[in-house]
Structure formats: structure tokens, C-alpha cells
């Protein structure tokens, strides 16, 4: 464990340019690590949002880190559209693979299980399917032999997670978002930030063990209290609504986004 506990910038250094990087939906997301990735100026990421994108995706796009996005949708929720995402798709600067939420979950499960493909109902007749060269339709091999969409597995090079707890052995307690376990299993490298490091063995405690990702799957771990800011971590801190509303209005222009990044991403390092 001790050799795995590093700081957030050291985690960011482990994400190579061009990596397929998977991020999970809010709340409890590794914003400190996202900021460190922007500071280290990682480039040409293939970003996969599980299943939809939020402030993490928006900020990575604003920071110029993303070449391709595979997503069911990107928005800032009640704070409105994601301006950097919207602009980059319209200009063609960002390649988009439009998906649908259950497809991404099913593809991630296929990646976890090491299977060559998965199938999903729906999709047939949609332009989501039409524009995905990597999706296809086969006949159900079983009666009634009806058409069914076939999707490739999602196997991220790197999955990033913010979680409530880790123990001294490097086991991570993910709390109430069970899909994070699938994400950790499917990703070749899983990088984790946590609110707290505890002194007991999470695997040995029945109250925690069902929601633990064992250290076997964890490639790097950093202690990052309030690491999801300005997004909430339930049980630890609330969402910073004023901050997100301010981003939403500032981010309407490229200059505004640059000012934001200078103040809250690049400037944050200088302040520390």
C-alpha cells in the first residue's frame, strides 16, 4: 500500500497522451485528478463517459485534453449546457461517438467479463446506431431470430474514481455506486482518490466488504479530501452551486474558459 499512496499529480502522470480514459457520473467524482490532468497538459484523450458526461468531461475538453468523446450526453445538469463540449462538437475539433446510457453500461460489463461483444435491445432504426461504425446488427441466433444490436466491449486504458474510503492495504470502498466496481474491473489501470484513509481492513468488515474494490484492481491511490469539489461527495461535502453557476456563465466564451482554468486549475497549483 505505502508504495501506492501517492499525490494527485503523481496519479495524473500515469495517464499517457492518447489514452482511453473513463470517467463516471456525478456525484463523487475525482475533480482534483481531472485538474491535475489539465495542468499536466495531457493530450488526445479518448474520453468515455459512464454513462453520461458532466463537469469532468467539460473541463477536460475546455483544457484541450480530449480528441474523441464516447458519450450518451454531456451537460452541466441544472446549470445548463456544457459550453466547451457544445462548441468543440460544432466546430469539429472534438470527434463524437454518440451512444445511449444502457449501451455504455452493457459495453463496460462486456469489458469487465472479457467478452468479445454484448447485445442490447432498442437502438435499431436510430441515428445513434446509424452513425456508430463499431455497432452492428445481427439476427438473434435463438427463436424468434429477430434483429438485435451488437456492441463492442469498452476496455478503458485508465479508469478514474473518487471514493469515500481506502484502507492501509489499498482496498477502496466505493459506497453506493456499484457500477464503479465494474469500471475498476474493466479498466487496465484504475486510479483512485479518496476522502479518507482508514486504519481498519475494509475487506474484513462485513459492513463494507460488499462495496469494496480490492487492491488487486487499484493501480494508484491518492488521499484527496474534498477531491470532488465543486461536485458533491455525499456524506462529506455539498455541491458548490455558486461555483458551478459562475463557471456556466464564464464558460460561454473561450476567453472566459481560459480565465477560469487560470484561476481554478493552473492557479490552484500556484496557491498550494
Amino acid at each position, binding site marked *: 500500500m505505502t508504495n501506492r499512496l501517492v499525490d494527485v499529480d503523481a496519479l495524473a502522470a500515469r495517464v499517457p497522451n492518447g489514452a482511453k480514459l473513463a470517467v463516471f457520473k456525478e456525484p463523487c467524482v475525482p475533480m482534483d485528478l481531472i485538474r491535475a490532468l489539465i495542468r499536466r497538459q495531457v493530450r488526445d484523450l479518448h474520453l468515455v463517459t459512464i454513462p453520461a458526461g458532466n463537469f469532468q468531461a467539460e473541463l477536460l475538453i475546455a483544457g484541450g485534453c480530449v480528441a474523441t468523446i464516447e458519450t450518451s450526453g454531456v451537460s452541466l445538469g441544472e446549470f445548463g*449546457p456544457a459550453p466547451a463540449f457544445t462548441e468543440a462538437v*460544432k466546430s469539429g475539433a472534438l470527434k463524437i461517438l454518440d451512444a445511449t446510457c*444502457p449501451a455504455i453500461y452493457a459495453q463496460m460489463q462486456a469489458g469487465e467479463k472479457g467478452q468479445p461483444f454484448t447485445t442490447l*435491445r*432498442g437502438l435499431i*432504426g436510430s441515428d445513434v446506431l446509424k452513425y456508430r461504425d463499431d455497432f452492428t446488427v445481427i439476427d438473434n441466433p435463438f427463436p424468434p431470430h429477430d434483429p438485435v444490436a451488437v456492441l463492442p466491449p469498452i476496455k478503458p486504458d485508465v479508469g478514474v474514481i473518487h471514493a469515500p474510503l481506502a484502507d492501509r492495504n489499498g482496498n477502496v470502498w466505493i459506497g*453506493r455506486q456499484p457500477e464503479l466496481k465494474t469500471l475498476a474491473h474493466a479498466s487496465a489501470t484504475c486510479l483512485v482518490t479518496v476522502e479518507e484513509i482508514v486504519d481498519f481492513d475494509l475487506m474484513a468488515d462485513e459492513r463494507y466488504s460488499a462495496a469494496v474494490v480490492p487492491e488487486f484492481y487499484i493501480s494508484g491511490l491518492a488521499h484527496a479530501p474534498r477531491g470532488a469539489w465543486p461536485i458533491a461527495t455525499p456524506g462529506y461535502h455539498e455541491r458548490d452551486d455558486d461555483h458551478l453557476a459562475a463557471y456556466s456563465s464564464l464558460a460561454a466564451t473561450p476567453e472566459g474558459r481560459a480565465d477560469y482554468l487560470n484561476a481554478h486549475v493552473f492557479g490552484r497549483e500556484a496557491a498550494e
Partner: protein
Amino acid sequence: MIENSATTEELLIDVIARLLDGVRHVAVGVLSPIPGSGALLAAERAHRDPMKPEVKVSIIGSLKEPYRTDGGVDLFDCAGQGRLDAFFLSGGQIDGAANINLVGVGDYPQSTVRWSGSFGSAYLYYMVPRVILFREKHNRRTLVESVDFISAPGTSPANVYRPGGPAALVTELCLFSFDRERARFRLESVHPGHTLDEVRDQTGFDFDVAPDCGETVPPSAEALETIRTIVAGRIADPYPQFAESRFGVTQEAACGL
């Protein structure tokens, strides 16, 4: 003194609740306070009627245990197994064949207008038996002859497995039902204060008109009372600003309900 006339939002909540009559489990997506309120009204009505089964309401984003769903795998698994009877979808564009577009306007992918994305629609529209399309703003920009991108189609060929699909379209002006055989909307009623001509004028697609099409029945006094007390209190959890601005109910006060 209680105001006896319904606001447009209260009317829409009541219309949606009536469309949900008989469902066992309804889920509500993000940013949907009016569909959420309609689902909670339907649930309260079923709860008071000993002849009706209880209604489970799942509101994505709610922190209250009875309504909690995080929009994760469970929601889609429920739909795949037939454990979800009703859901709400919308669209930046909706056309006369009930195709919905949540992606953008113009050529794909470099569209002139880009919205967030299709989210769960390209699956749930096929799988949930009673999908209610809710689009409050009713104009020709939104209700178009043909969508620019099909996030999910209104109907499917007979050989495609499709237990679900659109049942109705609710807007600020009117209520349409959807005929899956004919792939056409049918105007069922026009909300008080609006006219058939106005609906035709503001709708970009051709539609049928029900022989008995009349004015939408406004909420009863009992329905209004329920909306303004019980529903307002419960919707304050996922949508505190909505509950406070429309019904004067604060989240703190609602915790006692």
C-alpha cells in the same frame, strides 16, 4: 384563501397524472419537475384508492429513499425486464411520427445547434410500454415535420422487438395521443384558453383530431389541493427551487410531510 383556478403547470401535472392511471412503476428523468409532480400525484391517488395497486415512483436525482434512483444500471435492467411501466422523454425536436431528437439541428455531427445527447432514449423508448412525451414549449421549431437526427424512432418494423413506445405528447397547448399502427398523433384535447387553430398554427406536423376533441378537463378542487400540499412537499426533495417558487414549499418544511 385558496386560489381555485389552476395554473398551466398544475393543469399539466393533472393531465400527466391521468395518463399514468394504472401503472405500477413510473420513472422520471433529470430536470423534469412537472412530470415528476404528475407521477407523484398519480401515486397519491392510487394510494387513496383501495381498488388500485400502489405506484412506485423513481425520480432520478432524488435523495428520498422511496423515490431514489441514480439512473444507473438498475433503471435500465428494470426496463429490460418489464419492471418499468412508464417513463418520460422529450426532444429538442419531435416529429409527426414521434421520432425524437436530443442531439442537434442540421448536419451530423457538426450541427448548427448541438444539444447534450440521447442519454437513455435509444433504449427506453423501445422498452417502456407507456412513454409520455413532455415538451412544455409548443412551436414549429420544436414540433417539426421531420427530425434532423433520430435519437429514438417513434415506431419500429414488426420484426423488431419493441414492447414500448410513445403513448401521448403533452405540451403547454394540448394533449395528443399517439397511434402506433398509423404512426400519427391524434389531438385529444386543447387546454383552456387555447384553440384548435392555435395548435395547428404552432405545430409543424400534420395530425389527426379526435371526434370528441374538446377542452382539457381542468384539475378538480381535490386534485389542486393534493398538488399544492402533498405533491409540492414531495417534489421539493429533487426540485427545491420548483417547489418553493410554484407552491411556496421549502425543503425544510417539506421534510415533515
